């Protein structure tokens, strides 16, 4: 355009056309980005937690759902497995979480002191453990194996020593173990 020797007298019309094109383009970009976010939100499970649940961090150990003997994996009547865990400075209890393959797992965890993070390597399980609130996640493990579960939220000076393991075992073996113990873990 700038190389053109003529001076166009329909400059206003050119400008209006360019403006319309750019406006259209930016609206398309916004719609695409919003659409990607909505699609990912609905189909890739990148949703915030459905329910807000609370738990008093100072009395977790005294009774209720997060008392130490109730932590670990529990087989539910509907065939799913609920895993309960707490994060504290500087360990997870239980230190080794035992889960079966091919089973819907509900992970319920909270913190008894500061903000911790719960991340299971090799999976998309990743959440914060905020004192006062119960973090709930669902997961499903396809293959037997072992995953690391480090604290991924700096929780103070011993943070680097804080992690647990998740051991995935065959579903039949797991269900066998539930017959004589109501809460399972793999702490040695």
């Amino acid at each position, binding site marked *: 355009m700038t190389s053109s020797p003529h001076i166009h007298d329909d400059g206003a019309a050119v400008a209006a056309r360019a403006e319309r094109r750019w406006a259209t383009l930016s609206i398309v970009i916004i719609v695409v980005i919003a659409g990607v976010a909505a699609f990912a939100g609905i189909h890739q499970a990148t949703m915030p937690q459905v329910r*807000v649940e609370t738990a008093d961090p100072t009395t977790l150990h005294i009774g209720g759902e*997060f008392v*130490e003997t109730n932590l670990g994996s529990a087989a539910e009547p509907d065939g799913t497995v609920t895993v309960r865990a707490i994060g504290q400075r500087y360990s997870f*209890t239980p230190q080794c979480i035992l889960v079966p393959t091919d089973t819907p797992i509900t992970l319920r965890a909270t913190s008894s002191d500061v903000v911790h993070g719960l991340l299971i390597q090799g999976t998309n399980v990743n959440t914060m453990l905020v004192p006062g609130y119960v973090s709930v996640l669902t997961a499903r493990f396809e293959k037997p194996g072992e995953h690391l579960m480090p604290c991924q939220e700096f929780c103070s000076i*011993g*943070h*680097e*020593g804080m992690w647990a393991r998740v051991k995935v075992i065959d579903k039949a073996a797991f269900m066998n173990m539930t017959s004589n113990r109501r809460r399972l873990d793999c*702490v040695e």
Partner: protein
Amino acid sequence: MSAESVFSLRNRWFITAVGITAGLFLLTAVVGLIVLPYAQRDVTFTSIWDAICSAAGVPQVRSSAAPVQPDFKVSTVVVTASMLGQPSQESIGRGATLAQQCAICHGPVGVSRADSPNLAGQYASAIYKQLKDFTSGARVNAIMTPFAVSLSEQDMVDLSAYYAYLPRLPAYHPEQGKPAPRIVVNGAPMRNIAACGSCHGALDNKAGSPWLEGQSAAYIRTQLQAFASGARRNDISQQMRNIARQMTPEEIDEVAQYYASQPPQSRRASSE
């Protein structure tokens, strides 16, 4: 266009603008509070109000199955970082009088001549927690239990305040040439062990954890072994059992020896 006619139903622009805004509001409310909650898998709502309240973040307390109750006494102490923060002079004085009955094992100024813990300068929260656990039976000891059961809540607060007020033994490690044990300085991150000092005072203090410098080696070793074997279970949510279970017997020895080093004057006192 005059000012009166702007907010009039006859003004087409006004109707359109309000209509679009209200429509957007309704649409986002329906999508955010109803459509998206129902789009999630693994969730069942009892009613549409349940879905709306959940999406709006109304807190709920729900715990499905009956919890497995412990068949042993767990610690019932509520430990917070701000507990027993500012003791009164009266409380400290009362604690000093009460402490006379403790002196035979824990020393007249809280520095033990036996293998009982030194209490001088100990964190008040740590002393209070152990006394309370002895009283409740969460921690059992043939000597301490009978003493503790007769203490009132105020007695425990006062004793903790008194011992916390006494000057503590300074950290003293005569073998400066030798590096401090790795387990003390760094912990063992590969085995889920944080450095001892990240809770026990050298780096940071986790409320309820004791100061360890100058404690008897025999005492530290015995307690670590008891945590590792599960014989002692009054640590809240296994916070110390998780650590001790992962330690090797050699590391337990190293730690006990390291913390047990005491400055010369207290050595003299204990050998007199």
